[in-house]
């Protein structure tokens, strides 16, 4: 799979929610939207920045929350390259209800106890639940039995909270490209696994990065879980999607 998006020099014109924008050929719809201050929600794609330490954008295409309608057909914005004269619908009632439903699915699939989670207040899933005004899911809970892996000296891996976005699989690798995290099984038995040999010796910098890029509280740096006080957490003052420009972009600003 090609999860790393590269760009080239040709200019593409498309519209998102009626707003005409310019993008570079090879950019995805999500990347083009981000460069133009348009918010498309996502739980798996991640824009490279100083904060998260990524060298390039990643787009696993797993969460499906960034689904947009392109020339009348639904597509994932994070994996669909821009094309000339695309007409993209993003902030519509229909699409937002699809997104809300997916958020509900992720809540009932795992075991999410927000009040006791280290990531609460900085969690993208929680923030999207607020954004889409999820009160209680319309589907029954799975009450899954999920493991907690505390073997690593630096990391706590709580699969109860994992939404299987695969950011860690793609982003956290050794210098020679070996994955520290992987995907296991399939269907309702799917999960993320750790290579305990490699994770045992993970660097402090990379442990922080793994925690930072995890959109929920599945990967926690031990002994630092509740460092950020209430009032200073990521979404305490600004709801998800309210920032209109990327202020820490590694690349050029359009």
């Amino acid at each position: 799979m090609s999860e790393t998006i590269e760009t080239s020099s040709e200019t593409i014109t498309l519209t998102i929610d009626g707003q005409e924008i310019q993008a570079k050929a090879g950019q995805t719809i999500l990347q083009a939207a981000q460069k133009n201050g348009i918010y498309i929600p996502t739980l798996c794609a991640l824009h490279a920045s100083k904060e998260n330490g990524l060298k390039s954008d990643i787009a696993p295409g797993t969460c499906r929350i960034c689904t947009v309608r392109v020339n009348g057909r639904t597509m994932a914005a994070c994996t669909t390259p821009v094309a000339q004269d695309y007409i993209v619908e993003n902030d519509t009632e229909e699409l937002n209800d699809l997104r809300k439903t997916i958020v509900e699915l992720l809540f009932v699939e795992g075991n999410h106890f927000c009040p006791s989670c280290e990531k609460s207040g900085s969690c993208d899933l929680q923030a999207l639940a607020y954004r889409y005004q999820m009160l209680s899911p319309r589907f029954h809970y799975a009450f899954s039995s999920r493991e907690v892996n505390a073997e690593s000296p630096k990391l706590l891996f709580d699969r109860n909270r994992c939404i299987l976005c695969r950011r860690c699989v793609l982003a956290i690798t050794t210098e020679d490209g070996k994955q520290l995290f992987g995907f296991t099984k399939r269907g309702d038995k799917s999960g993320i696994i750790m290579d305990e040999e490699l994770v045992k010796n993970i660097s402090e910098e990379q442990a922080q990065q793994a925690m930072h890029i995890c959109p929920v509280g599945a990967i926690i740096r031990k002994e630092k879980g509740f460092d950020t006080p209430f009032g200073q957490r990521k979404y305490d003052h600004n709801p998800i999607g309210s920032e209109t420009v990327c202020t820490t972009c590694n690349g050029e600003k359009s």
Partner: protein
Amino acid sequence: MSEHIAALAAKYDNDPNRLLDILIDVQAQERCITDDAARQLAQEVGLSWADIHQTVSFYHFLSETPRGEYTIYLNKGPVAIMQGYEAVATAFSEAAGCPIDSVTEDGRIGLFVTADIGMGDQEVAALINNVVFTSLTPEKARALIKDMQEGVSVQDMASKERAYGDGNNSLPSIGSMVRNNIQKAGPVCLGPYEVGVALRKCVTLSKEEVLEEINASKLRGRGGAGFPTGMKWDFCAKAQGPERCVVANADEGEPGTFKDRVLLTERAELLFEGMALCAYAVGATTGSLYLRGEYTYLREYLEQVLEQMRADNLLGKAIAGKAGFDFDIRVQLGAGSYVCGEESALLESAEGKRGEPRNRPPFPAQSGYRAMPTVIDNVETLASAAQIIDKGAAWFSHMGTEESTGTKVLSISGDCDRPGIYEVEFGITIGALLEMAGARDPQAVQVGGPSGQCLNAEAKDTPISFEGCPSAGAIIIIGKQHDLLAIIDNFMEFFTDESCGSCSSCRAGTWILRNTLRRIRQGQGTREDLTAMRQLSTVMEKTTKCGLGHTAPHPILNTLDNFPHLYEALIPEQSDIRVFDLDASIKAANAAVGRTSVPEEKEEEQL
């Protein structure tokens, strides 16, 4: 470090793209792939341990714990359930002394179930160490277990009955009890055929002329989606790339389908000719037959056919005497995954990875197997293409309908007198097929397998065609004696197990639909559940990446539309909101502590 593991990896040049072949060999030799083996393989082929693990855990026939010297995979497809699966499963389990999904204490016998092994016309069936056993009964199951306990070899167990199947099934290189059950041989895939004629005709044409002929025939893909074949070949021919590839998709995992098994058994040369002339038209040099793991028993035969065709100058260098026309084919085994029937998932699997659908674009015609522009076509599509080049586009397009030319090979099974293979012209009605097959008192017809449509009696005049009712080829006839929702439950279990886990809406949506159906079947459903299932189906259809996610809701939606009375019978009227009766629910607790419920008035008095 194990020398055995190292030798198996070296057999494939330690190529990470051949990881699946290596794992299949390790599984066959060691009966499992231990964590130590996974770590060693990671070193041998230059991958992460995580890469090895995620591939091993993906495929049904690979395991991290031993599966037994004799590994029984009992088929639990819908037709097997209709025809006695439960009794056979119980007999196997009791005779072996272990429950399903486990191995006996002595490690000798492993008993497992699998989704559908392509024997819908001769259920109940099982795979034992890749050998097929058909028409099983509880008595036969007990006899097989006794043989295993005595150490009889699996091949001897199969040949004991001395009842080889018909046609090529009786050849030494197959040696199987599987029967073809060709009930109606049509003129194209199962019609008169002479090896080599199509290819020798092909090399007298230019590449453009071959493409024109395929386009003129209006042949569409027989795997379900029905994409115009000539258009797909055109895309590949025009794509940039130093080399191109042709892949035959022989991963017919849809429960109820077995047509490609018969074509592989009886028309392998036709398939390979179709691949070769496609290679000629698009400029490919590399060919691969992706053979589902359930059909491993055919591999030796297929290798022999390929060898013979090389000897006859129909594969290899300068095919049919045409200088520069070089093309060869190798067999790539799968290891048990339905989603690998999806073309980009199949390519991932062929490259030794988890068989997950790729993000598109790029499409396989631009960047497919090992980044080569690739044509992936169904077995039946390629076989048809060879006959088109031999007999002409006009001959082919005069059959069938305006938009659905030619014939369709159908696998008909279930409650009928004559289950098996029917090659018919497109446009034939479902009613005509039911009569042809001798349907017995049908209440429903599942066309196209679980991902297709569940139809009622009103569909008898519906034609099988891309304009009418498209079908990849599976038709399951369900008689009135069966609980239709039990079969739908089996379908939903199938989708839940086979979802690759990548897309959240499919991974979660499949088990939610399954569990909701089960709640309804247990008398605990509400009308809100019906609404929620429809809403979830819409989300799955619109947000998932591949056909499995798009079509997994079909069994639910079809039965809600075509068999609403089944749900109405299970959901009482006025059950939109379930009333909670506090007194009734605490009655047992009150009795246990000798307490009578306190009237409201007394409470007020006390306060």
